[in-house]
């Protein structure tokens, strides 16, 4: 079977990443979490967007940093887990009376270290999922799918994205000019001097862009009627009130937790609807419209499968989903591991990104 080279729909990759992140958030089993990270790395290696620099390594480094930081902090300051297996003992630092809850140094147990490691590994796995989504589909491709009410805001973000690198180039130019005049360009005062010409240029360019947008009839792209606008505002406000009431019910169980979740869901629904009904846009054709085909559906399905299996596993408390902190390797529930592995299948059945082969 041959698939034409193309980039998959960004929403498919982000939903897949969210599913895998949900799966990772439900377990602290190190084997499962390492599997999640491995799946992310595999899919990114096979199918990443070749047009952008790969952000996954940065996310992995961040995750590794979190693990190391947690382990060091746990060794020095301890955590809430008290174990019997003392690995080594650090010298204790005496502290004043007011900080009585804190200890620095003392015995370091295997249990507390393992707890810290498993928990940090879970955060690292979630970060890997987010990083994989960033690498597979650049989030700025999602800007196209903003609701019409946010069309103008989306345009402002696109203007910002386009101008930010130019701003840096301008700053370099001004700095070079100043260094030619014998300034070394360091220090806070020099930075401040830099800001004025750079921002002046940016405004010049941006207002020029605005003038050209206006002369091309940009302002007529979005239609709002006062009545539709009022309707949307009412929906948004009622939705926000619903969200607030639902949260109150959820957080304060004495009021009645049963009412909280439906109220919250209703509020979220109304608030989302207010984004959809607030304005409408002229029908227009898109350049290089992204398509949703069976590979996209299957990608989302694999992510959703992993999330579903792990959620069921954590609700039914399968052995090994939240392993005990002991020296023996924890048991790995086979269905959960298989579900995570299936989430790696998009590395093989999805179309190859355009420009990845040369």
């Amino acid at each position, binding site marked *: 079977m041959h698939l034409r080279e193309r980039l998959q729909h960004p929403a498919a990759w982000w939903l897949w990443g969210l599913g895998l992140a949900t799966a990772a958030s439900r377990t602290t089993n190190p084997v499962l979490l390492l599997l999640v990270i491995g799946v992310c790395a595999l899919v990114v290696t096979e199918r990443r967007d070749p047009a952008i620099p790969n952000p996954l390594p940065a996310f992995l480094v961040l995750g590794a940093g979190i693990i190391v930081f947690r382990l060091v902090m746990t060794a020095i300051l301890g955590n809430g887990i008290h174990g019997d297996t003392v690995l080594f003992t650090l010298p204790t630092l005496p502290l004043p009376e007011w900080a009585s809850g804190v200890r620095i140094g003392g015995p370091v147990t295997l249990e507390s270290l393992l707890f810290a490691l498993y928990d940090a590994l879970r955060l690292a796995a979630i970060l890997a999922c987010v990083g994989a989504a960033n690498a597979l589909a650049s989030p700025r491709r999602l800007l196209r799918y903003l609701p019409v009410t946010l069309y103008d805001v989306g345009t402002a973000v696109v203007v910002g994205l386009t101008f930010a690198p130019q701003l840096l180039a301008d700053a370099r130019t001004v700095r070079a000019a100043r260094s030619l005049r014998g300034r070394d360009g360091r220090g806070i005062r020099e930075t401040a001097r830099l800001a004025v010409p750079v921002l002046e240029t940016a405004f010049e360019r941006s207002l020029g862009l605005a003038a050209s947008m206006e002369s091309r009839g940009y302002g007529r792209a979005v239609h709002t009627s006062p009545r539709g606008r009022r309707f949307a*505002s009412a929906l948004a406000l009622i939705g926000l009130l619903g969200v607030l009431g639902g949260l109150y019910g959820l957080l304060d169980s004495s009021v009645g937790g049963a009412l909280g979740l439906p109220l919250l869901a209703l509020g979220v629904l109304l608030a989302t609807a207010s984004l959809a009904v*607030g304005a409408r846009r002229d029908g227009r054709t898109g350049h290089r419209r992204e398509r949703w085909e069976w590979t996209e559906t299957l990608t989302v399905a694999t992510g959703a499968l992993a999330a579903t299996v792990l959620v069921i596993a954590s609700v039914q408390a399968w052995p090994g989903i939240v392993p005990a902190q002991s020296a023996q390797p924890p048991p790995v529930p086979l269905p959960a591991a298989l579900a995570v592995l299936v989430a790696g299948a998009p590395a093989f059945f999805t179309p190859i990104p355009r420009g990845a082969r040369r």
Partner: protein
Amino acid sequence: MSTRRVIPLRWPSVAAVCLVGVVGLLAFTWPFFVSADFATAHGNDAPWLFAVLLGLLSLVCLAEITAGHLDAKAIAVLGVAAAAGGAMRLLSAGTAGLEPMFFVVIVAGRVLGPGVGFVSGSLAVTTGALLTGGVGPWLPFQMISAGAVGLGAGLLPVTAGSRAERWAVAGYALVSGLLFGLFMNLWFWPFLGPNAPTGMGFVPGAPLATNLAHYGLFYLATSLGWDLPRGVLNAALVVVAGPALLRVFRRAARRAAFGAPVDFDPHSVVPPSPSATAHGASR
């Protein structure tokens, strides 16, 4: 000179901002007053729930504030604020915490009003995240917090262009830098649970004073070292470059003529003179 309001805040927007503000406050401070059984049952899901919820609500808030008020020029000015914020993020990607981004947001909110302050704050964070590929569950929390920083800058009760403005805004930059860190830690603090250092972790169901004391220690031990330099850097930037930058923004706002009243009266239109028509036709 009066402050030009590029985005006027009408009562639905004000109500929406207030409601989202209350939800945002809940999203950050729920660990302090939630019941013990909720915390043990949902302590791990709550940050995700709030991340999704705040993401949606910040979009609703942006839509409410901007709907029907943005013309091409307002978009251009917001674009510059977003670009400046994003560029600052690119520059400071290596030095965690030293983010001069707030400086731009505060100046924009100061000159162009609280509405623009909110929008440019959240857009600057979004642009920075999109540029560095750092879109994650922290983004909604940052959008709300940075928006609040810009909003507050627009609401500062000092007259524009006065001598006091410089110091008031500098003080505001320092305080908001510290508060931003204080609130941003809260979104992941309950996550740490028993994994936080002894005496600094979130204890579900413990009295408010205990959790506040624990969080205070946690903040002092981990975050203050980053937040204080950021606050001081932003305040210093405001003192040194603030007046000049305020002038740049005010000039841009004047040139874009946001305040200019538009009235069109068909009777007052001067009919074109014959010579001008002839000139036009001959071309």
